[in-house]
Structures are given as structure tokens and as C-alpha cells.
């Protein structure tokens, strides 16, 4: 009798457990903490760029060409006397924007296709899966380079190219997760009470496939930032004089002996922001993944 009376309480406790366990794990995860701090720092700096008391990132000063770091220019100047600190801060906007927008494109296009394939199965799944496999067959960066080359060099086209190249990853994850969710009892119950397809996807499938997509999105932002920097390094991304870390490195490689600081700071920034997203992604995965490895 006592056991029967306690059962609802136990069920509530079990139902509440995963969320509180996630919060507890995430807040106690050192990697998520350090990753979060790094990402937050770069996001705040990028957002505050217009109001920070820094020099114009495209203003040249021919009397201060390739000057090493001083109090006037804490990160030195570049080959035409532009302030490196200012260009670094404005470059953060380009990198973060490219990372977030391209992943948003990949998620917004990939998740609906993935859910459709996993939910409908049959020929819909076959067509979408073959399409995904074909896209996944070309290496990510080579596909992005080819797309960016065909669309023409610009930051916007690079974001589209990276987004399209990353899309199949999200189709695959959303499809797999939807198929897993479809076997759950609550889907069966929802069907039994006559819930429509749209409501089923919106209320039952999407909320349950969200965690792995969030983890993958965080990790893909890191990959997208490197991809944007790589494409800008090759001259396919942000066009001069607008600053971007990748294009700054491209110029810096010609002045390695005379001005090594030109290469040091943009590269270190890419490394730190990517490390931040990777740490955050790892922390999220550890907190959301019940398997402990």
C-alpha cells in the first residue's frame, strides 16, 4: 500500500532527474565553464566593437607601417599602418558571424530534411539519405571551396557555402534521432490519441531531438569558424579592406620576418575561439550524454 502511494512521487522524481542532472553536470563541467568564458569573451568583444574606444580598422597610417606592439598600438600595426587591435576586434565579428550564420543555415535546412526522412521513412528516406551521402562524399572544405569559388568571393557566399557543406551532417543526425524517438512509447500514445503529423513533429519530436543537435551545432560552429578563416586565408571570404582573421593571416605570411606579430594575434584568436566552442561542445555532450566514457 505504501509502495503504491509513493509511486507517483517516484515517477515525478525520475522525470525531473534528467534536466536537473544536466544542469548539475553542465555547471560542474570545467570544460564547459572555460569554453563558455572564452566564447562569451569573444562574443562581448565582437558586439561592443562599434562603441569600444579603438582606432578605425581600415584607416591607414603610412608613418606607422609594420610597427611592433606599443602603448599606442597594443597589437602593433599592419603593412599599411592599420591598427591590429582594432582589426582583430572587428575581425571577431566576421568570424563569429560566419560561424553562427553558416551553422544556422545548416540547421535550418538540414533538420527539416532529417526529420522528414526519419518520420516518413520509405522512399522519402531513401531519396534524402542518398542525397545526404552524396553531399557527405566530398570533403567538407573542398566542397566549401568549390561552392565559394563558383558563387564568387564574399563573406556572404562563404557563409552559404559552409552552411550548405555542413547541412548533410544535420540531416543525418536529425534523421537518426527522429528514428530513435519514433520507437518511444510516448509517440505511440500520441498516435493513439489522434495527434496530427505537424503537432507530433513540433511537440514530441523536435524537443526530443534538440539536445544532440545543440551539441553538434556548438561543435560545428568551431569547424565553421576555421572553415571561414581558411577560405578568407585563400582569398575567397571577406574581401579587403574589411578585416577578417583569415585574410589578415594571408597578408601576414608575406611579412613573417619583418612583422611576426601580424601573424601571431589573428591565429591565436582563431585558436582560442575555436577552443572555446570545442570545450563548450564537449561539456554539453558530457552533460547530455548518459553514457560516461
Amino acid at each position, binding site marked *: 500500500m505504501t509502495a503504491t502511494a509513493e509511486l507517483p512521487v517516484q515517477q515525478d522524481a525520475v522525470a525531473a532527474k534528467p534536466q536537473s542532472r544536466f544542469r548539475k553536470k553542465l555547471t560542474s563541467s570545467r570544460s564547459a565553464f572555460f569554453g563558455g568564458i572564452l566564447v562569451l569573451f569573444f562574443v562581448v568583444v565582437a558586439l561592443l566593437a562599434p562603441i569600444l574606444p579603438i582606432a578605425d580598422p581600415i584607416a591607414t597610417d603610412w608613418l606607422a607601417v609594420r610597427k611592433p606592439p606599443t602603448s599606442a598600438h597594443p597589437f602593433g600595426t599592419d603593412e599599411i599602418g592599420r591598427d591590429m587591435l582594432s582589426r582583430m576586434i572587428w575581425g571577431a565579428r566576421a568570424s563569429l558571424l560566419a560561424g553562427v550564420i553558416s551553422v544556422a543555415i545548416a540547421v535550418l535546412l538540414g533538420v527539416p530534411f532529417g526529420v522528414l526522412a526519419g518520420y516518413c521513412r520509405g522512399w522519402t528516406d531513401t531519396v534524402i539519405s542518398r*542525397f545526404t551521402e*552524396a553531399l557527405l562524399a566530398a570533403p567538407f*572544405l*573542398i566542397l566549401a571551396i568549390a561552392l565559394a569559388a*563558383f558563387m564568387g568571393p564574399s563573406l556572404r557566399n562563404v557563409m552559404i557555402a559552409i552552411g550548405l557543406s555542413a547541412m548533410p551532417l544535420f540531416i543525418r543526425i536529425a534523421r537518426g534521432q527522429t528514428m530513435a524517438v519514433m520507437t518511444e512509447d510516448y509517440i505511440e500514445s500520441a498516435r493513439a490519441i489522434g495527434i496530427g503529423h505537424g503537432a507530433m513533429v513540433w511537440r514530441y519530436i523536435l524537443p526530443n531531438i534538440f539536445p544532440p543537435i545543440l551539441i553538434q551545432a556548438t561543435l560545428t560552429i568551431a569547424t565553421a569558424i576555421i572553415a571561414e578563416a581558411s577560405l578568407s*586565408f*585563400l582569398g575567397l571570404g571577406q574581401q579587403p579592406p574589411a578585416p577578417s582573421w583569415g585574410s589578415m593571416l594571408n597578408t601576414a605570411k608575406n611579412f613573417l620576418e619583418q612583422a611576426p606579430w601580424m601573424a601571431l594575434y589573428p*591565429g591565436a584568436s*582563431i585558436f582560442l575561439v575555436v577552443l572555446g566552442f570545442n570545450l563548450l561542445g564537449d561539456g554539453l555532450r558530457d552533460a547530455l550524454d548518459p553514457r560516461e566514457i
Partner: protein
Amino acid sequence: MLTFLGRRFLIAIPTIILISIFVFGMQKLLPGDPVLAMAGEERDPEVIAFLREKYHLNDPIAVQYFSWISNALRGDLGISLRTNQPVLELIGQKLPVTIQLATMALVIALFIGIPAGVLSAYKKGTWVDWLANIIALSGLSIPNFWLGIMLILLVSVNLGWLPASGYRPLTEDFWLSIKTMLMPAFVLGTGLAATLMRHTRSAMLGVLRSDYVRTARAKGMSEATVLVNHALRNAMVPIVTVTTLLFGELLAGAVLTEQIFTIPGFGKLVVDAVFNRDYAVVQGIVLCTGVAFIFMNILADAAYRVLNPRMRDK
């Protein structure tokens, strides 16, 4: 195994057809009329008409695709606009350089990644594990083109130990070739080493918890024997599969590495083709890498079955 391979090849055919459609479709993304660009400044209507006829541009798009794919199947991927060489010949010339770079990078990655992963799993929860994880994550986060630039600055410019750029074929001067390729291979190998380390660690953690490892320890075997002969041998199954799948990363990484170290390989060919608007070469490269990647996936599946007898029985 033959049935398995036959089935996998059959499944790959629609995927390859889809890749060819993407690659062909890329050309259609081009802004403007390619014939106008080819016809020069005078834009003589007769020349334009001749070019349209020559490249079958007056045909419906489906006919254009079938003409292009039937040529591709015969090994004719078009002619490079810049060098006037057949695209396939050009790829064949550059590929050995990239294969040397990729092989050296893979060897470096295996020598760093596997021992680091084994040690990290064996010392789970200690400072060794923590340090190995931090290094691996840093390896994954560091842009390889920046690492290349920094190494040129340190090793070539400041220390003068290794050449900063260039390439010497293995057949001409073996040791100089290795010496020239060492730094680029290290740059390309670090990211892969990090990936391998994480997979090795994960596979080893699974194996180290298994009963047969406990039995081996109970029988009084030395830790080295348990680790190498029992644990690592079984953990190798996923590691070999992952290594095969790293092909795509190697090729993509080679694009930037070859650019920094001025190595005349496959990667540099892509970038040069992009900047010279040599679209036949870009299309040829994407098609070849796509098809090669599918075959590497089949190889990875086959390796998995060979190494794992339980899969063979199914």
C-alpha cells in the same frame, strides 16, 4: 566478403550519380554566361555561336549532363583552360605529391595519436589523461595554416633547421624530399593525431573494462602485455576504421598545407584552379575526391569486417 563488396558497390552507384549531378550543377551556379567570357572582348556573334555549338550549350540541360557524364566515364574530364592539359592527366601528375604528404602526415598522426590515446585511457582521471585531452583538443582547435606559418617562423626563419617551402620528388633525392616534407606533414598530422587520440582513448576505455582484460590481469600478465596484446589489439578495430575515414580530412588539410609550404600537389591545384577560374579542373577534382571518398568508405567497412570476426559471421 565478395557479396558484401558487390552490394556496397551497387549501393554506391546512385550516390556517385548524385555527386556527378552536383558537380555538373555547380557550373550552372556561375554568374553570367561562360561563353561571353570565353569569346573575349570583341564578342563576335559567330564565335559565340561556334562556342555554344562546341560546348553543346544549345542543348537541353539533361542532354548536356549526359554528354558530360559519358565523357567523364571515359576518363575525359575536360581540358584545363590555363594549361590546356587534360584534367585527369593534371590530377594524375599532382596526386603523387599529395599522397607522399598525406602518408607522412598519417604516419606522424599514428605515432602521436595512438600512444597518447592508450596512455590517456590507461591513466584515466589523472593529470596525464587531463593533459593528453587538453593537447588533443588544442590540436583540433588550432588552424593548421596558422600552425604552418608559426612553424616556418620558428623552425625555418629563426632556427634554420628545415626549408620553409618547396618540393623535391622522392625519386630525385630521397632524404631531401623527406626533409622538405617533414614540416608540412607534421602540420597536417597534428589535427589527425588529435582525432586519433580521442578515438583510441574512447576505444581503449571500452576494452579495458572488458572481462578478458580482467582475466588477463588475473592470470598475472604484465601490464604492458595486457595493454598491447589484449586491449590495444581489440581496440584497433574502430581505430583502423577511423583512420580510413580520415582520408577526407587529409585531402582538405592538404589544400591549405600545400598553399603555405608552396607544395605543387593536389591541394594547390584546387586553389590555383579556383583563382584561374579553371572550372573544369575544380569540377574534376570535386568529382574525383567524391568518388575516392566513397571507395574509402567501402574500404573502411571492409576493414571493419576483416578485423571484427563477429561482423563477418552476420
